[in-house]
């Protein structure tokens, strides 16, 4: 992202991971920003996080003006994001102001203005020395007051007034039929407009954010997915091009000497994504276990997302090829996250994986196998999900290994959809040769390095995986069937 944006625009950081990157530093300071979207899109939560982060981390007290929800409801709703509004209120950093508008109680006769609203806002702002304010949502006024001409003139005055007072303001608005907001609030707010969206297509529920306007700032124009969890909101990059995370030239071992050798002699690139595909029993999980084992040996944290086997099964199976993962688990360097894809939608899986990654901050992750997601989503949906996951991991310089379980004889068809997302693709096969079965490994591709085009034999020994040159006769050395 270009941070050398126009001079003179001060930014008020939102403190929301990802959003400050997209907006090159935050919302325009001392000016109003419109956050709009349909019901349930997360605009209230985003506005609240902007205030909470400002109050607790950035020394900018804030007033939250709620026109619809009661302060008690709001306090309860955001507790799940880890926000303790009562604490902030008691410390004088936050003020919840409930403005109740009920047309049935109000008769109108003759000329009026909204000076009472201004007085209330002014009083609230002054009482805690607020620098930030949220109005959620002003459109309630249209439901409460009949004279639209007066109301619109007063809104115009309100936004000018907020600017004059130097308030960094967030105004929320409900999405209209053909306009950004039902009451056309975008007419009044020309500095920054952010649109939120919450789409559910089939089972895939996705939250997205788009900066449609930001005066004086080069901003990302893509739709960025975002998450809401118990740590608040995080906006995720949609493409690796969207945010400038640099491709690392650092290389890391895959944990198998012979494999590193095939990969230009040095192993994977840090932050790259690796696809390992093959049928059952070809050694995918063993390669994955070596991969996390090597990371733990370097002292790096790793997460093994197991969608087929439980933690104890994987640990037991790996022990049978002389690979003991238990010490890494005990030391907290390795974490297993086992789940059945059928239990949740793709989005939920993605979110839960993001959460694990945010929580442990690993340097490597394994997803084993990624193909199990095909039971809960179409290939296109799975690909879209993987793209988002990979972008997220790349932006955090996390190296990821994805196992793909192929069922058909045509090994590569199911991988075609996802292989384009991958930097390195390893193909494992089992062939009958000289009356015995052999596991073979090839590097189908590996971006940015001179990799081997050789086919090598993969041996599961009691000292782990070993790669050897293919020989015509079957080796007689001791061999353990690792997985079954």
């Amino acid at each position, binding site marked *: 992202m270009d941070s050398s944006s126009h001079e003179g625009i001060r930014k008020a950081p939102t403190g929301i991971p990802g959003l400050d990157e997209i907006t090159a530093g935050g919302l325009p300071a001392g000016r109003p920003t419109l956050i709009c979207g349909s019901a349930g899109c997360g605009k209230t939560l985003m506005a609240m996080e902007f205030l909470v982060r400002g109050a607790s981390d950035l020394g900018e007290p804030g007033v939250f003006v709620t026109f619809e929800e009661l*302060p008690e409801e709001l306090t309860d709703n955001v507790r799940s994001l880890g926000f303790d509004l009562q604490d902030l209120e008691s410390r004088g950093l936050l003020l919840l*102001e*409930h*403005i*109740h*508008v009920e047309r049935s*109680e*109000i*008769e*109108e*006769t*003759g*000329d*009026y*203005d*909204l*000076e*009472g*609203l201004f*007085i*209330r806002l*002014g*009083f*609230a702002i002054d009482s805690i020395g607020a620098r930030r304010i949220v109005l959620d949502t002003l459109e309630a*006024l249209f439901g*409460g*007051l009949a004279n639209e001409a007066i109301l619109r003139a007063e809104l115009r005055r309100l936004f000018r007034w907020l600017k004059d007072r130097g308030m960094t303001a967030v105004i929320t608005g409900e999405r209209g039929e053909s306009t950004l907001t039902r009451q056309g609030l975008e007419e009044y707010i020309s500095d920054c407009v952010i649109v939120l969206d919450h789409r559910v297509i089939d089972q895939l529920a996705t939250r997205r954010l788009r900066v449609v306007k930001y005066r004086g700032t080069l901003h990302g124009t893509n739709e960025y997915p975002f998450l809401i969890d118990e740590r608040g909101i995080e906006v995720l990059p949609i493409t690796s091009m969207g945010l400038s995370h640099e491709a690392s030239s650092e290389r890391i071992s895959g944990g198998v000497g012979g494999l590193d050798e095939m990969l230009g002699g040095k192993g994977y690139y840090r932050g790259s994504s690796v696809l390992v595909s093959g049928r059952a029993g070809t050694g995918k999980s063993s390669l994955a276990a070596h991969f996390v084992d090597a990371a733990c040996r370097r002292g790096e944290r790793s997460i093994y997302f197991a969608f087929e086997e439980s933690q104890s099964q994987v640990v037991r199976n790996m022990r049978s090829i002389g690979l003991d993962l238990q010490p890494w688990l005990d030391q907290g360097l390795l974490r297993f996250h086992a789940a059945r894809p059928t239990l949740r939608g793709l989005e939920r899986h993605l979110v839960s994986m993001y959460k694990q990654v945010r929580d442990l901050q690993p340097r490597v992750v394994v997803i084993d196998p990624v193909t199990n997601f095909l039971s809960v989503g179409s290939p296109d949906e799975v690909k879209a999900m993987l793209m988002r996951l990979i972008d997220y991991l790349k932006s955090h310089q996390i190296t990821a290994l994805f196992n793909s379980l192929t069922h058909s004889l045509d090994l590569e068809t199911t991988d075609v959809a996802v292989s384009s997302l991958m930097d390195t693709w390893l193909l494992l096969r089992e062939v009958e040769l000289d009356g015995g079965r052999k596991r073979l490994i090839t590097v189908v591709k590996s971006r940015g390095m001179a990799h081997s085009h050789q086919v090598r034999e993969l041996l599961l020994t009691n000292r782990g995986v070993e790669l050897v040159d293919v020989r015509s006769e079957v080796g007689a050395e001791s061999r353990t069937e690792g997985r079954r």
Partner: protein
Amino acid sequence: MTRHKEDEMEPLPSGAKLWDLRLYVAGQTPKSVAALANLKKLCEEHLAGRYRVEVIDLVENPQLARTDQILAIPTLVRRLPEPMRKIIGDLSNQERVLVGLDVRPRG
């Protein structure tokens, strides 16, 4: 924290209806001056001897804008008889004010 129309009051004996009215203003603006003049005239003509008007200037008491949920200026609040009613504007249309205050039946 917020309070609207739930103030408990002793029911008044029938026939002895008291009209307890509050006019919220913000300084001496033309609208506020007009509203007060219109209100006084209306009360004298229709509620003589059984009304009370209190004028509250929110510039002096800004916290009352919150407790009484006032947005528009001027706002006339009928505190009694219950239920509470709000009429906003300069009260220039006397007929509507009378209906709004239920001095004159609706319809």
